[in-house]
């Protein structure tokens, strides 16, 4: 039995009288790779914020392992032009940096060209890579990503996800990710959690794709995806 890094028990969150999260039970173990999917407004980001501690649930228990070291990559970072700050200064904020690790990550994520560029002048994709770098520099054992590939083009997305996979495999970092990229999520074999205020279903993509709740929420999207794939297929051989 693997140890839980963090364990959520019966979490409830209300906001202005509306239930955002209902009875959420979630265990994240060492070596897990979990992807949360769900419609807009399903409470995905709120759940993430509860896990990183920036939102307090109305009820429920959160148990954190004493070895837990979380790093978080947000959906996006607001540009604040009033702060004159470049990427390098941002990366060094509030953490000691191991030079070897720094060299390796800057090389892997190809960010060395814009380390001296002001944060507000970076493109969405560049800023996202800087955010991932900052997360990795803290050497976490649980990496939490909230729609990390949102600002990337398709090839950028594929590259990003394959890098996350590599991190998971090689460094044995546990990953919790919110994703809208159904085509990527559903084509992998990683565990998926389908969230719509409560956890509708969870498991391998193959299995949850057959789940009635999943079909109700994502049926249309999945059909569209399949038709895109079919079209793509025709195009090549037809």
């Amino acid at each position: 039995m693997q140890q839980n890094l963090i364990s959520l028990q019966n979490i409830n969150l209300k906001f202005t009288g509306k239930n955002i999260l209902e009875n959420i039970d979630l265990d994240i173990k060492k070596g897990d790779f979990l992807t949360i999917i769900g419609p807009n407004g399903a409470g995905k980001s709120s759940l993430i914020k509860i896990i990183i501690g920036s939102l307090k649930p109305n009820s429920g228990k959160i148990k954190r392992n004493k070895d837990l070291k979380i790093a978080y990559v947000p959906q996006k970072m607001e540009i604040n032009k009033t702060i004159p700050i470049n990427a390098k200064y941002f990366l060094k904020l509030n953490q000691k940096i191991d030079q070897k690790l720094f060299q390796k990550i800057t090389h892997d994520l190809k960010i060395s060209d814009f380390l001296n560029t002001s944060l507000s002048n970076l493109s969405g994709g560049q800023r996202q890579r800087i955010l991932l770098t900052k997360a990795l520099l803290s050497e976490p054992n649980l990496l939490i990503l909230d729609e990390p590939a949102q600002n990337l083009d398709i090839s950028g997305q594929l590259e990003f996800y394959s890098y996350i996979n590599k991190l998971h495999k090689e460094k044995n970092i546990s990953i919790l990710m919110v994703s809208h990229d159904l085509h990527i999520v559903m084509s992998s074999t990683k565990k998926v959690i389908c969230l719509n205020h409560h956890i509708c279903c969870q498991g391998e993509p193959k299995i949850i794709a057959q789940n009635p709740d999943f079909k109700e929420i994502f049926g249309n999207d999945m059909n569209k995806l399949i038709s895109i794939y079919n079209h793509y297929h025709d195009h090549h051989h037809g």
Partner: protein
Amino acid sequence: MDEFIIQIIIAAIGISLITSALGCFVIWKKMAYFGDSLAHASLLGIAIGILFSIDINLMILATTIFFAVILGFLQNRNFLSNDALLGILAHGGISLAMIIISFSHANFDLEGFLFGSLLFVENKDILLIYLALFIIYPIIFLNWQKFILLTLNSDIACSMGINPAKYRMIFTILIALTITITIKITGVLLVTSLLIIPASISRIISKSPNQMLLFSTIISVFSSILGSILSYQFDLILGPTIITITIIIFSLVIIPIINLKTILNIKQSSLIFLAKICKKP
């Protein structure tokens, strides 16, 4: 130079060291109006202090912290926008203060409290200023990176174990303390200018947060020394004199930036305009 002007200069240097550092955060967190409203509302504290003969510094500190707590509470409720809440607070504070003042028969130097007065600065105020400096500087410098990270993205900060609510409270108390010690020099109306003008000038010429802090401090200290001397020599009102100097520096820094762009635009558009006129039969 007599003892009096030296006393003023020492007080002004202490205040500008504090306001220039905290001012960077006020600019970054876009809290200029927050500071302004607290300062205006603190007139209520002054009025109550005078009416009941309670120490004025203590009353200013108490009212600013009290209002900041109420503001924090209401802002979390999302009923009203921030600017409306701040407006209500500032004007409510001033109005109540004026009514209380009309009840008290004490000699009340309203202009002095609105714009600052040299005559207010006593030895005990200087002691208080440097006491505040010794509290505020270590807090800012020990938590410098945490404050910056919180300003950039509080969720990332939170994931690194920094508690945003705690630091928000610390920051609010520092602002309240700064307003308290600055009011006697600048008056209620102009407190915020010492926070925002040097830091704004510095923003234009800085490339890193550390540079911004350094330049802001240099500009602020220079302006307050020069301002104190000029105000003493020519019998000018102190706060506005210091602030006018900072505004002159601000203009000197910002004019070259505006000039290049607007002159180019004006030339271009006026040429197009002329061409159009000439074409007309």
